[in-house]
């Protein structure tokens, strides 16, 4: 028993653990700064304390999932997925809307966001569908079949409504099938279809959503809401310069210019205080984490395991890109958290669990079990 444990500990992926820990600690530090009031000399709400609890819980979950054989999840994939669907239905019917969306279950200490945890369930079920994958490139039928778990989740999340999170699911899946390999005609038709559907999507968007898109082209047109955040975010980042203003010295964010900076706009704080150099270092750290996850799929022979790894990597990539593009004013504000850095239990724990499963695949492969 003890030996088996030692064996596992010896083959752990220390690069992965190192980057993961580093990002988590950085997250706590930046959240502390986001909440820090320069005038008062102390933090306002103490989000960082809660984030510490999330991080400790997340690290525990990461190791628990690392040491559980990942094949167990594949075995119970359908039940896990049904449970997730149950939670999503629960929020739709029983949760009071917060800011117009029914996305949270209040469990006292914190608000649970089922659409985050659903990512784990959807990824596992998708991977299970690849159990008897024959190695061929995907045609239309294949894509349609494999997309079922994601589409079901997306449908329920759109009803909340939380289009931003739904979009993350779709992009994650898109990158997955690209990595698995598409037949040329499928790839081309998706490309053409996307272009053709843009006007249709535009007509389906609610006026406020169109407004958010337009704000990107012309931030001045809505100085009240989305445009305001983007303008302030850009000012803060630009003011950071090359070296940054220094930790806890970011005036833009600390003076409450940016609403909820500890959440989706956490990268703004980092960029303002750590400057261009710090921002690039953070970007490289995240890229390194994604790369470490991604290449661990190469030597895995079981297709479901490969799929779980690729999905985790593409999910990290999607959220990282969407979030940073959003705070830099390149795409509309759609409320996607930065992986590991943004304040929030549901998002953090979801990524911790996924990394844990990826890590468990790594350990199994090294031990040849």
């Amino acid at each position, binding site marked *: 028993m003890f030996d088996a444990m030692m064996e596992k500990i010896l083959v752990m992926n220390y690069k992965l653990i190192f980057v993961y820990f580093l990002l988590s600690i950085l997250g706590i530090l930046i959240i502390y700064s986001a909440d820090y009031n320069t005038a008062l000399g102390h933090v306002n709400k103490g989000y960082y304390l809660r984030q510490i609890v999330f991080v400790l819980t997340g690290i525990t979950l990461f190791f628990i999932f690392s040491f559980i054989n990942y*094949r167990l999840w594949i*075995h119970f994939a359908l039940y896990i997925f049904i449970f997730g669907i149950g939670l999503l239905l629960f929020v739709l019917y029983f949760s009071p809307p*917060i*800011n*117009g969306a029914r996305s949270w279950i209040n469990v006292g200490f914190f608000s649970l966001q089922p659409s985050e945890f659903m990512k784990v369930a959807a990824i596992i079920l998708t991977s299970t569908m690849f*159990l008897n*994958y024959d*190695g061929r490139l995907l045609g239309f039928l294949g894509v349609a079949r494999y997309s079922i778990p994601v589409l079901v989740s997306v449908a329920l999340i759109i009803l909340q409504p939380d289009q931003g999170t739904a979009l993350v699911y779709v992009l994650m899946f898109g*990158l997955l099938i*690209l*990595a*698995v*390999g598409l037949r040329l005609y499928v790839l081309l038709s998706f490309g053409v279809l996307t272009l053709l559907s843009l006007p249709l999507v535009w007509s389906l968007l*609610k*006026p*406020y959503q*169109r*407004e958010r898109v337009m704000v990107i082209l012309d931030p*001045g*047109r*809505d*100085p*009240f809401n989305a445009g*305001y955040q983007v*303008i302030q975010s850009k*000012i*803060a*980042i*630009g*003011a*950071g*310069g*090359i070296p940054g203003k220094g930790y806890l010295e970011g*005036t833009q964010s600390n*003076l*409450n*210019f940016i609403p909820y900076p500890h959440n989706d706009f956490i990268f703004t704080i980092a*960029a303002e205080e750590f*400057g*261009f150099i710090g*921002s*690039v270092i953070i*970007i490289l750290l995240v*890229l390194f984490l994604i*790369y470490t996850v*991604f290449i661990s799929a*190469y030597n895995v*022979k*079981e*297709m479901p*395991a*490969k799929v779980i790894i*690729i999905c985790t*990597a*593409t999910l990290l*990539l999607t959220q990282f*890109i969407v979030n*940073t*593009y959003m705070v*830099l004013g390149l795409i509309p504000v759609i409320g996607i958290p930065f992986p590991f850095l943004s304040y929030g239990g549901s998002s953090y724990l979801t990524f911790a669990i996924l990394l844990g499963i990826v890590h468990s695949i790594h350990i199994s492969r090294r031990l040849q079990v």
Partner: protein
Amino acid sequence: MQLPVLKDEDSDRLRGYSYYVIYIAVFLTLILIARLFFLQIYSHKYYSDLAENNHIRILPIYAERGYIYDTNGELLVSNQPTFSLHLPLIREEDVSDILRRISEHVPINMTSAIESVKSATYFYPAVIAKGLNFTQVSYFYEHKNEFASLIINNEGVRKYFYPQSMTHILGYVGEVSKATLSLSDEFRPGDSIGVNGMESYYDRILRGMDGAMQVRVDSRGRRLGILSQKDPQQGSDIHITIDAELQKYAYDVMKRRNETGAVVVMNISDGSLLTLFSAPTYDLEQFTPMVDTDYLRTIRAQENKPFINRAISSAYPPGSIFKLWMLAGGLNDNVVTTETQFNCRGVFTYSRTQSYFCWRRSGHGDVSAVRALEESCDVYFYNLGLLMGIDTINKYATNYGFGNRTGVDLPSERKGFFPSKTWKEDRGGVWFPGESIITSIGQGYITTTPLQIAVSTAALFNGGTVYTPHILKKVVEPEMNERYGPKNITLNLSYPRAARVVEGMNNSSIEAVREGMFRVSNGKRGTARGYKPKGVVIGGKTGTSQVVSLEAVAKYKKDEIPFNLRDHGWFVAIAPVDNPKYVITVFAEHGGSGSGAAAPVARSMINKMVAMGYFEADSEE
């Protein structure tokens, strides 16, 4: 536990494809870094200046709320300009100081103002006072430097032209509640929102969309210039079907007679409402420029509940007016014919222990359909109800709209209630024949609203269409600011709209009801023969519904019964009777009786309508 494994060549192929994702990741990251380079290095000085030397504030530019007009285009509600004071989040010790100095010139609520400022942000100042006139704010304009961070803004508030007679229809405008704020990000603290009546129901249409401007201020909070501005989108005007003069007349009549209750005048052939009045009313003037909370508390505590719109928001037993649908249904189902007679000796004995009295204890003798309506003979309907059974009664009543919301375009409508056998059995009870008997004269479990009566009566005489009653005539949109697109309005604004059509009614049943109603008002023994209006021939039906059992009031002399125990009076009229255009429903809460309290009001209303020319086209025909 083992899973199937991939062949080596497949695994290699996958490895090759997965590089695409890495290329994409690298490409997207390069864009990201380029953007960072642009913001943090290339444009650093520009953004640094913006951050260091200026502060940015966001001020709302309030959208003007839409006006409301009556059916003849007469202005009912418009706006008058006022000023509001805003304060951004400033150092805590400065807050109470500036608020104290402000309060020397205008009345402000210190505790709530301090609270609002604390929860405000630098960019979005809190509203600390609203509805001020120019004299009140002129001091602040003259002493700008002493009130550096104070911001004065313009806002229109409501101006009412019929503050008493239109109360329940219009509703008023108040400050958005904390509950609403937490539910929706559409509003900000201090925003206005419609409360009650049309102001609430059509809030989205009337409200428009606030604009905003982004202003640069210096370190002391003084305004340096406007960075960008989003123009407000003015609210749409609404024209309603209500005739303000007639509505005002209803108010005058009810007030003069000191009645509590409701008056409804509706167009039979499209469901448009000319009058929808509820008494008592309250004074809308007390809600502008700001809601007078003392007044609000007073009328909320008042025993006669002026807040309730009695025409739609409160349900009462209909009493004898329900006999109209009893007769129509009974004849239509061939339970009786117009010739069928029942003998009334003043009492109907169902069993040894169960006797039901006619309102006329001396009896009506042999009574057939038309006379039963004319004299409102209870015993006739006891017999009819027993023969029909509750299921048939329920079928006709619910078809005509009883027990369902009419769907009128006002908030807080009550459904009323119509009993059925299954309803009682589902609750573990048994439906007794005696309950069918009292249902036949509109007593027992059945409740309805004055508007429901109007709609159901209209459906009897317009060929069976149960219209959705409405007060909306048209929405006049201001010139749309194309840039922001049309507003997200989910209301169905197309009228007239039929909720349902009652099928299979034969003409002769309806004609018998019409003849009965004609004789109520014009027959020599009609229960409302004393209240014939001049200039138009009407048909009517009186109703007197018991509030408590007869035993409970037996100890009082007739005119000494306490107000709250007195019977409700109802009167429903169709005019002109041979080709009805309008239905008039009067409800007199605790009025004593239909003929005594409700019919006179209906007569006054119809006389007024004649004088206003509502029936002129008819006389030409």
